[in-house]
């Protein structure tokens, strides 16, 4: 299969040279070739299917293309993507946004789930500490995302049930559920939208970030 793809490519290159275009394949041709190589190179393993790559949505394809070009995403497209992701957010079915911060901390610590070596049925972790500082006592935190230490405190949330806290509470839920609703090409996964975390787990994470008793806000 490798050979076949490469032969196709060789004849494509030969055709281009013959046509006097020694500059090589066009962007569209390179994109098509990449798709072809992806299909030929990756295979299903356990519960992880190739469709995770081939059936990805416009959010990912448009952001990848902008990254390759080294340019920010076109504003109109970014807006459309953010709106579509915003519409897809599922708000808490019982109206309760704040869960148990202790369970939230355990979810934030866990990086388990959804790799081909993970069980297909186990509860996934949130991977939060991989990229964010949260509880100050945890020194093993990543720096890809901003520090979330004192997240609620900085935003003046002393009582999450107070109507004045509502915009921050809703934003926090939305951001965890679908980060791309607020920033089309954010590095952050769409935890609820992509089924990484369930509604109960998202509630616990929001608790970890906004409960005044949570270590995040000490």
């Amino acid at each position, binding site marked *: 299969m490798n*050979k076949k793809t490469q032969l196709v*490519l060789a004849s494509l290159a030969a055709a281009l040279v013959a046509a006097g275009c020694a500059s090589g394949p066009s962007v569209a041709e390179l994109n098509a070739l990449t798709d072809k190589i992806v299909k*030929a190179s990756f295979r299903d393993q356990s519960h992880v299917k190739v469709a995770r790559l081939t059936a990805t949505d416009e959010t990912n394809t448009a952001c990848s293309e902008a990254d390759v070009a080294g340019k920010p995403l076109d504003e109109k497209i970014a807006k459309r993507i953010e709106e579509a992701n915003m519409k897809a957010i599922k708000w808490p079915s019982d109206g309760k946004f704040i869960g148990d911060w202790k369970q939230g901390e355990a979810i934030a610590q866990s990086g388990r789930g959804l790799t081909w070596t993970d069980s297909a049925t186990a509860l996934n972790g949130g991977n939060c500490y991989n990229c964010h500082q949260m509880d100050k006592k945890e020194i093993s935190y990543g720096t890809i995302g901003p520090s979330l230490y004192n997240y609620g405190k900085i935003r003046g949330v002393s009582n999450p049930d107070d109507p004045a806290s509502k915009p921050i509470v809703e934003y926090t839920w939305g951001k965890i559920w679908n980060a791309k609703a607020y920033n089309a090409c954010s590095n952050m996964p769409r935890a609820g939208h992509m089924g990484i975390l369930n509604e109960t787990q998202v509630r616990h994470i929001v608790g970890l970030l906004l409960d005044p008793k949570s270590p995040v806000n000490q």
Partner: protein
Amino acid sequence: MKKTSTLSMAAALMMCVVPAMAQKTASQGIDEYRAMLQDGNPAELFEAKGEDLWKKARGPKNATLEKCDLGKGPGVFKGVFVELPKYFADTQKMQDLESRLVTCMETLQGFNAAEISKTAFGRGEMANVTALATWVAAESKGMKFNLSQSHTQEKTFYEVGKRLFFQRGGTHDFSCASCHGEEGKRIRLQDLPILTKNPGDGVGFAAWPAYRVSNGQMWSMQLRLNDCYRQQRFPYPGFASDATVALSTYLGVNAKGAASIAPAIKR
């Protein structure tokens, strides 16, 4: 994910090291652990095994690999590592070191290349490919990466590799760039090299194959990429598949001028 090993490493440090240095912070303890790693590198054992495998008559044809052409002519092993992947006219393919070693094992020794490629890392002939790659890489220690971009396929594979590097997908929308697109970032406590340009001598592409202390395994570049994709929540990349070779081409060309320290030692 790797954070569990970072955590268990930190936990182990707490248990064994802390009593002797109670005043030190945990991060100072981790720095000391990293310094201790540099004392001896078990990769030398794999280098020795690789050199033996190169010279030993093996396989259905009972032949050595001493006539293997890794890109600088039959039998040349010095300096080839820092010029791979490259285009090979005989196979009409872009090949990295491991893919090329498997080609030689098939043509010279009579092994079945497809069979080897299907073997799990660390098992059977795949373990031998890793040892060979470790030895060949070590023969270029200190040399600077300088991949060719003169053949059309070499240029095309660089472009495809770039697209793969930025390809977002999977359940977490991760691409290689999510972790390796910016300078000075880390996952948990693990520093992440920027891979869109030369990250410096012995960093990123210029460090693998490497010996992993945390699991006691010798990791080739193919296994390094395979495990990156696993953690990215991507499907399984075939061994020496065009995607892995294209991605390596992108990383290798970007590393131009970086001195190789492979085989390195890693946590």
